[in-house]
């Protein structure tokens, strides 16, 4: 006979209560794990997107708000827009390579999709794109689109297929090689075609730019601001502000999870208090046959600790499944491909698992302290006399 065996018998005695208490902590831990791993993969995704842009900095409308910075990184459309002639003014500046983008949203095969108008040749060399299949389009290709590889796969498109965008027919001329950014989920059109199609003649959304000499960044910035009424943000600034937003989103999510966990901890306290009350007689017996206060304390601590261990493990399993499922779901609806990186490999992070189980153990041991202390404090006679 040993303490562990004794505790396990107690734990499984009331199966209903065991299961419900366990559910409490599992759900708390699951939300914690799900949010943690979703948040983690969002972060990784944003960093990857920004790298794939190949730019040193972005040129945006001056009145763009910080939330729209996310939109640029994620390939969403942004409402503010720049006159096209600003592009021409910046283009002629020395030492700066700049490309314009017009990002819009339209239904393709009945699913909302991101459509980006670009200058074909300039963008291709700027972004160092490779072709997966078919051919790249030229400036004068009026009815040709180039699509990302994920987009092709999800919408079941092949090179040579016809697609309808805003009631116009286009031919898929080529497919880009995947670069694991939102390019993979985008439809590209020549800029002039996009402007006409979306009735945005003479308008662009933002520009990406590269400079010959990063050391002179400040000079370039001054030169740009001198010729145009725009806002300039380097990749680091952009990434920094996006990550800051994601960070605060993460903290909010984690707070929600923490509340769930606290509720679960009270569930454990409640269960253990009930157990102490119900088992007074048994505590008395244990003490009468020679059990010390610390033996009783250990029995009850182990019991709540086991709730934490089992709850933590179950929580990790549920939470990771939820994260993977949610990631899939969010990318399925296609409204936002930011989370398409929330794939299983992004979710299964050993440190998250270990942290979660340890955390769950800590919470349950903390929750067990008071009931166990109450149990150990009973004198043998108090416990025995109870009927």
């Amino acid at each position, binding site marked *: 006979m040993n*303490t562990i065996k*004794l505790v396990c018998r107690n734990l499984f005695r009331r199966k209903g209560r065991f299961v419900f208490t366990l559910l409490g902590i599992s759900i708390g831990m699951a939300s914690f794990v799900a949010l943690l791993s979703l948040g983690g993969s969002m972060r990784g995704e944003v960093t990857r997107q920004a790298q794939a842009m190949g730019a040193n900095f972005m040129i945006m409308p001056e009145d763009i708000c910080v939330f729209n910075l996310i939109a640029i990184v994620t390939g969403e459309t942004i409402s503010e827009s720049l006159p096209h002639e600003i592009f021409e003014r910046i283009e002629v500046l020395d030492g700066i390579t700049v490309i314009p983008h017009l990002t819009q949203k339209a239904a393709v095969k009945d699913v909302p999709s991101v459509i980006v108008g670009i200058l074909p040749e300039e963008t291709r060399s700027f972004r160092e794109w490779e072709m997966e299949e078919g051919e790249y389009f030229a400036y004068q290709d009026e009815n040709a689109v180039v699509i990302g590889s994920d987009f092709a796969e999800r919408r079941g498109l092949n090179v040579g297929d016809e697609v309808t965008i805003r009631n116009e027919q286009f031919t898929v001329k080529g497919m880009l090689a995947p670069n694991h950014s939102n390019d993979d989920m985008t439809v590209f059109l020549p800029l002039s075609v996009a402007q006409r199609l979306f009735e945005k003649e003479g308008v662009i959304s933002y520009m990406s730019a590269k400079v010959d000499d990063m050391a002179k960044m400040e000079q370039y910035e001054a030169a740009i601001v001198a010729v145009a009424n725009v806002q300039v943000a380097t990749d680091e600034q952009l990434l920094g502000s996006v990550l800051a937003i994601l960070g605060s989103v993460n903290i909010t999510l984690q707070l929600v999870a923490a509340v769930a966990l606290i509720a679960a901890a009270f569930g454990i306290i409640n269960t253990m208090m009930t157990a102490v009350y119900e088992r007074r007689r048994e505590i008395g017996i244990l003490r009468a046959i020679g059990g010390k206060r610390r033996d009783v304390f250990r029995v009850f601590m182990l019991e709540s600790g086991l709730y934490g261990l089992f709850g933590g493990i179950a929580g990790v399993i549920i939470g990771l499944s939820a994260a993977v499922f949610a990631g899939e779901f969010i990318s399925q609806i296609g409204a936002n491909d930011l989370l398409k990186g929330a794939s299983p490999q992004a979710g299964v992070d050993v440190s998250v698992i270990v942290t979660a189980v340890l955390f769950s153990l800590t919470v349950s041991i903390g929750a067990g302290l008071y009931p166990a202390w109450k149990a150990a404090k009973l004198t043998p006679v108090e416990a*025995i006399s109870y009927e």
Partner: protein
Amino acid sequence: MNKSIIKTENLEKIYGKSKVKTHALKGVNMEIPQGSFSCIIGTSGHGKSTLMHLIGGLDKPTAGKVFIDDVNISDLSDNKLSCLRAKKIGFVFQFFNLLQNLTALENIQTAMMFGRGSPRRQSGFAHERQRALELLELVGLSDKANAKPNEMSGGQQQRVSIARALANDPDILLMDEPTGNLDSKSEKEVLEHIFKIHKTGKTVVIVTHNKELAAQAEMVFEIKDGTLSIT
């Protein structure tokens, strides 16, 4: 007469801290010789259980002393007292003696878990199990080793309790109305085992209402309103 293994000096117990106080024991002096068979009798509510709890180290007296083997146990720490209960004393109560979710065998093994380190006992799981089975055989319940308390009759449960009280080979057996809940047939069975165990040299103290049993005891203490008279 053998030397006394249990001795009390002016033992007093007052229950309750606030206005309602119960003076349960009012200066009890008693001596119980080693290896004897004693009964404590008396009307309900007059302090029999209280006295048993005090001499068994389950509770502390308000005043006075309890000596077990010449050691004043009123001075012992909670831990030392637990050790004493584990190794020197075996308890049997009137009812609900057993841990309900453990089998008969496991109940006995649990008591052994607390008695480890006793010089009289060999430890080791295999040895403990073997000894627990022997104790069950002693009370005639070899076939109930794996039965849970709710699968046994009241008399069988009390016999398991007696076997458990012997788990660590204690000198003293304290039983508070061990047959109080049983029909006369079961009572007879349980008492037979108690007599058998007494013959192995144990000091046995029983609280009872059974006149026949009291008549067979070497010493009978009667408690009346918290004071003792020896008959």
